[in-house]
């Protein structure tokens, strides 16, 4: 039986959310806090805000694509009786929308569209998804799951948060000045030669550069925390799998992010001074930029997915009341994915690379599917003969298995050289990465937020409301993005505002799907707000979990634990351990729990 967190012998401490009286004092407390929980909560609200900004941009993108741009020639008879032809253009939806708002200026519809998808990509990648799970849920729960009072370097954690704000401010400034048209990848030569308002590109690139430092410092903090601050009795293989995932993520963050730093710096120098490294006229190579860029950006997609996989391990085990199948396999495959992720960046550049390099990268890319598949099979085996409760976290976990598997499998035709030739830069790629990033990371993030919401805020959320939101998200997501696979194989290129009529039906369906998806997230937002205002009080362990965070109160006290916890059981030993603070009314458990394992 693990040590229960009793109050004996200590003064009564309020939760970490209670603060000094007075609004200014509270703001000051939150602005200067080094408490990882507060920082995690601030990150959570920031990334969710960025998600809505990026999501709005996505809705704008889809709104443009609902019909192609056409010139419609109408014939009419004018007052003099002559036949006149008038040409009107239709389908420039964003231009019509923004000129109605008075901000379109003299931009063409295509230019506005380019800025919209760049905004969507840049905000979603740099300001939302890369920090999302590590900085919010990771910050909050990594120390608690390890039994520590805080991360290794609490002040560095606060610095990370301020760097994130500072970098985001640069990005938002660039957007307010009108945004850039280069795409979130800032490919040369366009990004170095586009002369429309010089400073917007430099601002956006600087924003990404600064955000990189936030990422590096968070990763550094987590690596040292996992090495140094585990509770007594917790060896490496007693840690929850979420920690393994965040640890592997942090290693990638530390190693890969500096390369995007130097890349963006070189891009700025190329733009300002024409140093020539990416300019063919001076002997440079624009594809070299792509090598530099993707050396970071490929590992960063694993930064996006690994913590999500960690959350799924937690969700499926706890909500199916079953020990995780293949703990060590999942743990080592997290490290394996992190390692192999550095070997495969060239698969983004197949159509621009030499043959030999392309063959090497293609073979290595197939390799990275193996540890991922190992995890998926282990999760399915975890569910087998479990007592599955279909609440929101579990439903998101199951949705992950479905959508992430589709995303992963559709990566294989992109890894195959012959098929990638046709699918590169088509909507197939767009559908693939949305299935893994959104169908993977965002779905797991939503599941994790719901799973840990009671612990973080001490309030339960409204389950039926959340399930409705989840259903809308599931339907909306699949309608939006499954159609895009077909668009891609039929030849629709990505980042195009206009297209031939053949593609219109699928584009329309995709746009309607995006509206359902948006509605689903609005429902979730409403459920969250309602929970914070009027949610019922959450018990310490509503789900019957066995990891250390469930031994704290909901929400935890400032120092997380009253006494340093001592770990005497594994994180998923449901068959042999009664969960702490468990109330039979909250959650049914297996009748044999607590008896000796057989």
């Amino acid at each position, binding site marked *: 039986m693990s040590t229960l967190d009793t109050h004996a012998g200590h003064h009564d401490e309020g939760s970490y959310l209670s603060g000094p009286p007075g609004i200014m004092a509270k703001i000051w407390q939150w602005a200067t806090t080094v408490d990882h929980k507060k920082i995690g909560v601030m990150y959570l609200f920031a990334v969710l805000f960025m998600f809505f900004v990026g999501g709005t941009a996505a809705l704008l993108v889809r709104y443009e694509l609902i019909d192609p741009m*056409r010139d419609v020639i109408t014939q009419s008879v004018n007052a003099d009786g002559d036949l006149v032809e008038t040409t009107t253009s239709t389908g420039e939806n964003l231009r019509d929308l923004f000129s109605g708002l008075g901000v379109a200026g003299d931009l063409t519809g295509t230019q506005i569209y380019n800025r919209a998808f760049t905004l969507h990509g840049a905000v979603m990648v740099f300001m939302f998804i890369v920090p999302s799970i590590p900085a919010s849920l990771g910050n909050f729960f990594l120390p608690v799951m390890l039994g520590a009072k805080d991360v290794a370097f609490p002040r560095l954690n606060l610095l990370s948060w301020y760097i994130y704000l500072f970098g985001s401010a640069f990005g938002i400034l660039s957007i307010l000045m009108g945004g850039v048209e280069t795409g979130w990848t800032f490919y040369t030569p366009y990004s170095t030669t586009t002369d429309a308002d010089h400073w917007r590109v430099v601002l956006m690139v600087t924003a990404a550069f600064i955000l990189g430092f936030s990422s590096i410092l968070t990763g550094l903090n987590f690596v040292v925390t996992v090495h140094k601050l585990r509770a007594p009795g917790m060896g490496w293989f007693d840690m929850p799998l979420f920690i393994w995932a965040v640890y592997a993520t942090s290693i990638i963050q530390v190693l890969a992010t500096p390369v995007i730093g130097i890349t963006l710096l070189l891009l700025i120098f190329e733009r300002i001074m024409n140093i020539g490294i990416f300019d063919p006229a001076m002997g440079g190579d624009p594809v*070299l930029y792509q*090598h530099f860029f993707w050396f970071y950006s490929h590992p960063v997609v694993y930064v996006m997915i690994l913590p999500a996989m960690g959350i799924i391990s937690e969700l499926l085990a706890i909500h199916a009341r079953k020990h995780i199948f293949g703990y060590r396999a999942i743990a080592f495959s997290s490290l394996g994915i992190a390692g192999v992720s550095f*070997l495969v960046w*060239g698969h983004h550049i197949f159509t621009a690379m*030499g043959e030999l390099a392309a063959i090497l*990268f293609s073979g290595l890319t197939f390799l990275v599917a193996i540890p991922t598949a190992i995890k998926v099979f282990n999760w399915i085996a975890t569910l087998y003969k479990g007592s599955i409760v279909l609440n929101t976290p579990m439903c998101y976990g199951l949705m992950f298995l479905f959508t992430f598997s589709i995303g992963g499998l559709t990566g294989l035709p992109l890894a195959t050289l012959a098929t990638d030739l046709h699918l590169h830069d088509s909507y197939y790629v767009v559908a693939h990465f949305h299935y893994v990033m959104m169908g993977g990371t965002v779905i797991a993030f939503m599941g994790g937020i719901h799973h840990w919401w009671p612990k973080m805020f001490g309030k339960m959320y409204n389950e039926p409301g959340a399930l409705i939101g989840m259903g809308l998200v599931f339907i909306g997501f699949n309608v939006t993005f499954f159609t895009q696979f077909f668009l891609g194989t039929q030849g629709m290129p990505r980042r195009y505002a206009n297209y031939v*009529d*053949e593609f219109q039906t699928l584009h329309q369906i995709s746009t309607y799907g995006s509206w359902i998806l948006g509605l689903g997230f609005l429902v979730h937002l409403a459920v969250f707000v309602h929970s914070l205002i009027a949610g019922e009080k959450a018990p310490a362990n509503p789900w019957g979990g066995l990891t250390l965070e469930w031994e704290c109160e909901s929400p935890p006290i400032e120092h997380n634990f009253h006494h340093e916890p001592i770990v005497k059981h594994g994180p998923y030993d449901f068959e042999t351990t009664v969960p702490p603070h468990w109330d039979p009314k909250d959650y049914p458990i297996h009748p044999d729990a607590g008896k000796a394992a057989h």
Partner: protein
Amino acid sequence: MDYTEHTKAENVAQLGWDPEDPHGINPHHGEHHHFIADWRMQVGVLAILLFFTFLTVAFFRVEVWAEVAFGIHLPGWVNIAGAMSIATIKGILVAAFFMQLKYDKVLNTFVLLFCLLCVGLFLGFSMIDLGSRHLVNPMAAGEISTGGTGVGLNSAPADEDFSVRMSPKVNTQGMGIIYEARLTGTDNKDHHYWGLEKFRNDPNHSEAEFWEIHYGDHATHRDPMDEHDYFTQLGFGHHAEESDANKSRGRTGLTPGIFSDVPVDDHGAHDSHDDGH
């Protein structure tokens, strides 16, 4: 429970583990073991480092002198290999002794080595790509013409009617390179290396024979060079009806098609166009 009041021995006896080092990673933990460098060792390392600096400069100067005085040309790699190995030794000395990796936990060394591995991967793969991008697999290449239009970055701008520039190697008379190859037989497929021209001009063979061989590879549509419709004459035309998976879907847009010469919504019996598809 405050463990630090008891001695380490008492804690170990009671709990089974040392509260200041619960995982037993650092057995000397309680002894506050910090390595203090010997000043003589540090001066010695500095002397060696300065010597190696002198050596690497001397190496370079001697090489230049040998070239000027005796005309000895050392191959390029000697220069690089020598300079890099000396730099590596200096680096190892600084890392091991000044940064005290030798006396530190192995984890720190491992962190540095893993980082250098990543740097190696980055440089290595990038150099493989940029170094081999110009290479073409000789098995698949066959006869290469240096660009289908002969226009390069340094060419004069195209003239007003954008007429095609002839390639210096192959003059395709304005035809696409693939069709030119098929006509003259340079497209390197074994069984019709003769090319269409030869089949046409040879009295012992006929054009129909050429197309039979050519279409025999599961042709699904007629080749635009097939002026006499041997595709249908030889009976390959039925392939077109088996599957329309590779055809555009019927138009369901809200307006008639943009391209007025493409027929709207008929399955199978479409015209073949001279543009090849």
